[in-house]
């Protein structure tokens, strides 16, 4: 009976939520000052790390026991993929398993965080958020010259553990900070990394589309707010009045927003920017012309002039934007926007970023809508943990590596896939919202491609510089309107570089990457779709790239192993970083023999048969899915 009332209660409450066209007020949780929450005391365990205390206290409330810690061989693979996006070698796995030092795991984590491949992995997460691609899209889809320097800047920022507040400041206002450098000006390339229409219908109307793009990327990436929705009207759900959109947009109004020469691609020329061969952004006005609020967002319906300013939803941070100093060439508006965002009292900035970090490590955010912390966001699964992490993040000097380390050292991160009581727990929490186990995760497109290259021994680890163009099947190139000039594959060796260095061209995303959910980069993407579709299986079965990998690996193995079974044994070690069980070896060998007899007429039958084994292993779920 009582239960019925509870259900009815939930029902009524939800109907109310549904029907009362609700709007978040200034008291919405994510706009509140972050107060360090008390670390919960656990009944069942002592000395739990704070993260685990927050997670486990919720589990205790629901009478759920977390999964046991993952086996070391699975754990090391997980941490490799999560931190550097590459698989560990068999030897690394073995030495980790055999390392009896109680700090062995922590040492491993430190090593991976110190690796330059860390930045390559984590920069790619950031590129999704800032809708980064290397071409403009639209009529000509030209490559943005030198935009790759921004890509390298982000990689370097992650590798050098640039504090997050500095990371924000340089991307928003690297030209306006106290001591701008070429590097900090390169960082402003973020603002121009989106689409740019080289032949807009009406260049003057297009200015407002560009403003929307910049407001959108800045507000979603740094603040988790959909300020863009307030271009035409007051935000439907969040306390963002229409005027706030224009107050924020005014920060970009001082730049090269007016239509200029097409060769400048909507940005400043070298002279205006002060640097050559940099694809950056700067103001061309110290005091720009007035920006009007547009009725219904329509460029033809200018109303009153809007003064630049901050979002009004956090009242105590809503300070007026000051005029720039007399000697300044720029308006200092972006600088002040950056200061607003990185103010340690800003309730959104740290929450949004720690949530992104958490999401990349745990598979889902504490807030499942990483780009939206407004009324339409997902309810946080662990709101106090989120706040605790955010406080730690700010007080720890906005250190991303410190935050990552703290999370991956938790027992929660380390737990295994299998919970002995999963049948019962599934009744309570089928989506694993409370984190009572580790979720298995498919490799994303980049990790998959990089891992294929790594295990076949083909990966070229050269860092930085201009992007490479991979070979594409002729039928793919048919999609280009300019077939001859559109795509010139790079020298073979360059094509074996990591995916973060692959050209991302808006008119043609590499089909293999796209099949594995590489995002279309027109809009900021906070979490990628993860699809399981047949085109992935077709690509894995038939694409020449995979066949080349299997063949190359087989060739190496044949050269180094005389015995077929030994070669197969080595294949398992290479591909799964573990040795096969004897029955696994048997079935591989059986396949090998079957194939060898089919290929018997050919003089390389042994190589092809071994290549077939490798190809199947590379297709297997054990390879594709991270435990």
């Amino acid at each position, binding site marked *: 009976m009582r239960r019925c009332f509870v259900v009815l209660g939930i*029902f009524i409450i*939800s109907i109310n*939520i549904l029907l009362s066209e609700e709007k978040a007020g200034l008291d919405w949780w994510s706009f509140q000052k972050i107060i360090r929450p008390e670390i919960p005391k656990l009944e069942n365990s002592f000395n739990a790390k704070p993260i685990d205390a927050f997670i486990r206290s919720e589990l205790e409330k629901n009478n759920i026991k977390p999964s046991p810690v993952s086996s070391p061989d699975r754990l090391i693979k997980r941490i490799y993929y999560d931190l550097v996006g590459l698989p560990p070698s068999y030897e690394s796995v073995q030495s980790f398993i055999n390392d009896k030092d109680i700090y062995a795991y922590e040492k491993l984590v430190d090593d991976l965080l110190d690796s330059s491949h860390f930045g390559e992995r984590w920069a790619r997460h950031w590129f999704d958020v800032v809708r980064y691609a290397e071409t403009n899209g*639209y*009529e000509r*889809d030209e490559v943005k010259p030198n935009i790759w320097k921004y890509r390298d800047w982000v990689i370097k920022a992650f590798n050098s553990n640039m504090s997050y507040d500095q990371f924000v400041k340089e991307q928003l206002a690297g030209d306006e900070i106290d001591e701008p450098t070429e590097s900090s000006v390169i960082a402003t390339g973020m603002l121009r990394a989106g*689409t740019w*229409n080289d032949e*807009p*219908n009406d260049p003057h109307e297009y200015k407002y589309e560009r403003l929307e793009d910049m407001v959108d990327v800045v507000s979603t990436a740094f603040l988790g707010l*959909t300020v863009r*929705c307030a271009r035409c009207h007051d935000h*439907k*759900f969040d306390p963002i009045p229409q005027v706030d959109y224009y107050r924020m947009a005014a920060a970009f109004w001082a730049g090269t927003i007016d239509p200029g020469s097409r060769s400048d691609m909507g940005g400043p020329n070298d002279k205006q920017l002060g640097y050559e061969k940099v694809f950056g952004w700067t103001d061309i006005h110290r005091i720009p012309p007035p920006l009007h609020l547009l009725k219904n967002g329509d460029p033809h319906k200018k109303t009153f002039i809007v003064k630049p300013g901050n979002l009004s939803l956090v009242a105590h941070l809503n300070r007026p934007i000051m005029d720039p100093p007399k000697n300044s060439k720029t308006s200092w508006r972006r600088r002040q926007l950056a200061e607003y965002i990185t103010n340690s009292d800003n309730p959104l900035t740290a929450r949004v970023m720690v949530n992104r970090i958490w999401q990349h490590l745990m598979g889902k955010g504490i807030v*499942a809508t990483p780009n*939206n912390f407004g009324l*339409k966001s997902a309810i946080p699964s662990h709101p106090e943990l989120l706040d605790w992490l955010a406080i730690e993040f700010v007080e720890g000097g906005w250190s991303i590596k410190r935050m990552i380390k703290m999370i991956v050292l938790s027992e929660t991160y380390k737990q295994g*896939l299998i919970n002995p009581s999963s049948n019962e727990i599934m009744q309570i929490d*089928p989506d694993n*919202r409370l984190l009572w186990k580790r979720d*298995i995760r*498919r490799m994303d497109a980049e990790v998959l491609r990089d891992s294929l290259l790594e295990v076949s021994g083909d990966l070229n680890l050269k860092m930085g510089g201009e992007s490479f163009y991979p070979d594409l099947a002729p039928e793919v190139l*048919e*999609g*280009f*309107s*300019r077939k001859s000039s559109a795509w010139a594959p790079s020298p073979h060796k360059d094509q074996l570089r990591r995916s973060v260095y692959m050209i991302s061209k*808006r*008119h*043609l995303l590499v*089909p293999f990457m*796209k099949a594995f*959910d590489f995002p*279309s980069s*027109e*809009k900021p993407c906070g979490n990628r*779709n993860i*699809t*399981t579709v*047949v*085109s992935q*299986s*077709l690509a894995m*079965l*038939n*694409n*020449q790239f995979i066949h080349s990998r299997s063949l190359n690996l087989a060739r190496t193995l044949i050269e180094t192993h005389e015995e077929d079974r030994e070669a197969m044994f080595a294949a398992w070690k290479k591909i799964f970083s573990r040795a096969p069980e004897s029955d696994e070896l048997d*079935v591989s060998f059986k*396949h090998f023999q079957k*194939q060898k007899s*089919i290929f018997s007429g*050919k003089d390389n039958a042994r190589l092809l048969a071994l290549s*077939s084994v490798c190809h*199947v*292993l590379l*297709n297997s*779920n*054990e390879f*594709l*899915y991270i435990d």
Partner: protein
Amino acid sequence: MIKKTNKKAFPCGLTRRELTWQMGNGFSGLALTSLLSGSGFFDDNLIASDETLLPKPSHFKTSAKSCIFLTMNGGPSQVDTFDYKPELQKYAGKTLPEDKKYINSGGRGVGYLTPNWRPFQPGGESGILISDYFPHVRKHADKLAVVRSCHADSHAHGSALVQMNTGMPLIGRPSLGSWVTYGLGNQNDSLPAYVVMLDKRGGPISGMPNWSSGFMPATFQGTLFRPTGSPILDLQGPEVFSGEAQRNQLDFLDHLNHVHFQSRDKPEELAARIQNYELAYRMQSEAPEAVELSDESSHTLEAYGIGKTSTDEFGKNCLIARRLVERGVRFIQLYSGGGHLEETWDAHESIEKNHGQHGLEVDQPIAALLDDLDQRGLLDETLVVWGGEFGRMPFSEGKDAPGRNHNPYGFSMWMAGGGVKGGTVYGETDEFGFEAVVDKVHVHDIHATILHLMGMDHELLTYFHQGRKESLTDVHGRIINEIIA
């Protein structure tokens, strides 16, 4: 029952997905949402909560199950094809009156009003006037609903075509075919639900965004389909790993994957991936079969103009389109014209030369397609749409210049089959054929009508993205009821 409340003005309303989030995405939330949906509470999101490709019920019953969109890339001239303007004879050599405002795309020469380059003649019982660039299509005039009052927002190919395909001249949104696929799902496991066939001369300007699924999962993006051999990318691997060798591989793989599956607590996603390999295997034989024309009669091949140089390519594509319709493919887009300028319908140089060539390439195949669909009883369930990204100006680009510049202010499209009222003409341009003036039809209206004919309400077919209920037509779109049977 479809609720017609809470629409347009409120594109950011609550969906099942949002509610699920708000309810905490947990057991109670899910239970509640299914309870509510069972009670019809979510009728306005009947379709849009499902991100799979399983066949889904439509909003309401209609006859059209598939759509073939014949895209005349480059922008055919309306006054030379489907919008006869005898007044242009009178005004020939004069300029367009100054009160007619337009953007001169590409800053090209502005010349003199020029009458149609080929004569018009009435077709069918309806007597719809169609020019001699389309003599074969003209015979099917009674099947067509010609809309002469279309208009769009961009004068540049790239953004205009993106608008024709996605509703907005800004790249990044899901295309019409993605919306249809998202709304109705796939009827055939072995073929993609949304197929795009390009012109051999090249892809359209602005490329992939024209068949992208935008912010929707890639499940709903268009698949490029080639008319010969192996129609889909990665459908065939190296010869040595085909046949028995590949079957061995799949058996070995299946064994490994099942062992792995058992040891990982059997997540659904892994089960789906295991199944997909069998599906992929089937596709390898069934998809090529869809483009294998050897079982078509010589009469059919001839009707489509297959084997004749000018019509061979588009004829094959049209015939394949019919075969795909028969196999349940939802949305098929055929491009006529690819690459740039004269390789497309972009007749800056000469209408007669350009449209003479491209008209010849597509006229007979399109007529054959309409006829073939009709004879096989498929026309009722197949909506055929014809049009470019915009039209062309009624004036030349200079003295004695025989071409015309881009014109998004007024142009013609037509629809046939799939619940369309044949023999209809809707809307008018001004006396010059310059801009739509009577019963204007925006691209959004075209889209709303296509969705409607396929059983979907353009206001209810929504996808929740970044805090907003997105739809193909955004806050716009009016169904052209006058052309619906």
